[in-house]
């Protein structure tokens, strides 16, 4: 073990391999953000460069355009299977927040949560990987590495399985599925340290002056364009982001508007099946 990043990596690789061994129908939720890009990199570490299951993207059609360009290029370059799901009914009917016909939470609920559920049931997945971290937000701080969802996709956070000694919940009743969280123990700082060390490609708008970012603005967290704002500050690469992060005392998801709605709105979304 050379350093802390090696420990984080080894633990995540163990979890990814464990899920691959235990679940027949497996996919990885790839939001195209920095975390899921690290997660995809760890898959290649686990399987000697191979990516033996599909990447799944829930496309709301409101994503920052650079994300979609990055997604399609990387899928081509690395040659993995990509499954994209969109809730066209709601999108075409314009029952969305950007069209002024839904609250932010209703919009997230339809375009992300419902689309994700339809993606999972259409493909009959036993388990899907999701790149959430404990340090992002309070309900995620209480998650398990292997977290069951019932037949209605709900998260019963009041009755989670015990998880100890790297023995995970890999036995599950028919109709339920497992969310696997290989990055749960990483922090935002760790993610950028690892991106810097491994030279992992990320969407350029994380850096100031890229895409529509002015020279002194960048995205700290990526999501749908209407609900995600940029942060002030110049950072042209991962190491400059690290310098800023170490001085910052502002929560990472403070730029994601849906998190700032009613106190338990995000908890409700997650309980109903959101990432």
């Amino acid at each position, binding site marked *: *073990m050379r350093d*802390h*990043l090696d420990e984080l990596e080894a633990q995540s690789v163990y979890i990814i391999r464990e899920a691959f*061994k235990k679940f027949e129908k497996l996919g990885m939720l790839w939001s195209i953000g920095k975390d899921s890009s690290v997660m995809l990199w760890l898959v290649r570490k686990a*399987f000697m460069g*191979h990516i033996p299951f599909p990447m799944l993207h829930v496309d709301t059609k409101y994503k920052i355009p650079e994300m979609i360009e990055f997604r399609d290029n990387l899928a081509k370059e690395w040659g993995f299977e990509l499954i994209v799901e969109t809730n066209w009914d709601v999108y075409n009917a314009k029952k969305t927040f950007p069209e002024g016909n839904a609250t932010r939470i209703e919009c997230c609920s339809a375009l992300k949560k419902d689309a994700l559920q339809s993606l999972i049931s259409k493909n009959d997945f036993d388990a899907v990987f999701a790149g959430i971290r404990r340090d992002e937000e309070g309900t995620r*701080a209480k998650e398990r590495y292997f977290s069951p969802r019932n037949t209605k996709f709900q998260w019963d956070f009041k009755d989670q*399985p015990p998880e100890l000694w790297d*023995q995970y919940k890999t036995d599950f009743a028919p109709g339920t599925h497992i969310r696997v969280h290989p990055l749960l123990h990483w922090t935002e700082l760790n993610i950028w340290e690892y991106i810097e060390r491994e030279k992992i490609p990320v969407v350029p708008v994380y850096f100031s002056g890229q895409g529509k970012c002015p020279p002194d603005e960048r995205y700290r967290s990526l999501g749908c364009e209407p609900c995600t704002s940029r942060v002030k500050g110049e950072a042209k690469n991962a190491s400059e982001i690290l310098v800023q992060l170490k001085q910052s005392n502002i929560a990472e998801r403070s730029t994601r508007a849906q998190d700032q709605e009613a106190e338990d709105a995000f908890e409700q979304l997650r309980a109903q099946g959101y990432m």
Partner: protein
Amino acid sequence: MTDSQSTSHLRPKSDHPLRIVIVGHVDHGKSTLVGRLFHDTGSLPEGKLESIQASCERRGVPFEWAFLMDAFKSEKDQNITIDTAQIWFHTEKRQYVIIDAPGHKEFIKNMVTGAAQADAALLLIAADEGVQEQSKRHGYLLSMLGIKQVVVVVNKMDLADYSETRFNEVCAEYREFLSGIGVEPMGFVPVSAREGDGVATLSSKLNWYGGGHIVDTLDAFSQPPKKADDVLRFPLQDVYRFDHRRILAGRIESGSLKAGDTLTFYPGGKQSKIKSLEFWEQEALNSVGAGQSVGITLETQLFVERGHVAIRSEQGPIACSDEIRARLFWLGQRPLEVGRGVKVKLATQEVEARVHQIHRLIDASTLNVQNEGAKEIRKNDVAEVTLRLREEIAFDNADVCEGTGRFVIVDDYEVAGGGIIVDAPYRSTQEKAQAQPISPRERNALLGHEAGLIIFGDSLSEDSRTLVENRLHQKRILTYRLSDDEGSHLTSLLNAGVVVLAEHKAESLKHLGAHQMLLSSEDDVQKIDTFILRLKGLSDSRDFEI
């Protein structure tokens, strides 16, 4: 980084954080201590204080520090921690992960989940209520979970008039309990988390106390030593077949390995040399050690699979047995009765097990011991038992190697208990063979393949059927073609390890648990060689040879 000179006030570099769990009886102030600790050390993220204030105002309650960790609405509404949470924290000395655990008896499984990940523990006891049921049960569980560094925090000193006498009473009572289970705490610290006395600063109200505050206490814990020099324990997690290499993957639990080492795989005792270590996008290392997830190739092809534990041959064998003596804690709603079938997961091994005998049943909060005649272990109880396993597994005593010395018990899809092995009655394979029936694994080893079922589609020609049967036979696989009136024998044949060739008609053939293949068209016949590899354990169960 360019400004390293001016960053002394910033977070220390991301080293391995020390993981601290906070445990103790319900309402003794665990979540409050965490909230106060964050506030008093200036660690709250911007806006957090205001959002906690808003949550409290909405509920019409006074300011509540616990809302920092209690993220669920129902936790805030009831002012009780339901599930364990983790939060990152740093002092000038180092980084921490603070693990807040629930104190309610109903949520012991969540407390165990949090505590099992910790390097050290703060055990809180409220000065006004003193030692309570969960104070004791948590103390006991910490010792079973192998947490050696424990500091007792006597909280709510404000409700005991900051009295030295009361502090000493609580300490004496709890020290007596701990000595009964052989635990020696590193110290006792008086605080008032709600008022902030003794959290990040020493308080004049506690001027009779000569020790450090909570931040000092955290900094006085030490990183658990790494066991790099121990004997090799490498449990196989999976076998991959990538780029025409057969790669054995797993994580090293202790010791180290390098190319050229001779490995022995248990159970079974097969041997081979390591040909190469396999990496992707990483500088090739000569030697890899404990904690690393690795892939290796062998000089000779062996039938080894997930569950086997590799050791370095010159370091001597690992214990193998179908009987273990263990201490276990039970978390399941349904009691664990003597004789009932459950599943044991130890490292990457999984085996059906049943409790053969309960030697001691302990109520972990009173230490009352029931020595004889116990027939079941109830929720939250601790017991010393003998487990009988359906097959032999490889293991260590927990004090030799934790990774191969402790296990969980799965009962009806759920992890329902955990255990540590306290005795390894080693019996050699030969001795066992005289006394025990032959296991399916041993039968497979004799045949060189596992059982399987090949189903012929209705449209498949007779020529193709014969071709498949011959190909299998040529590859030294024991086959049998099932005629229409022999359907009732199928299970027995599969149990015996035979690869059965059958007609499609019988829908009931599905889901028997053996390797299966459906040959519905002439094209499918090409896939028979891949299936043969799978039967011989030379390919992963899913076909993705690339």
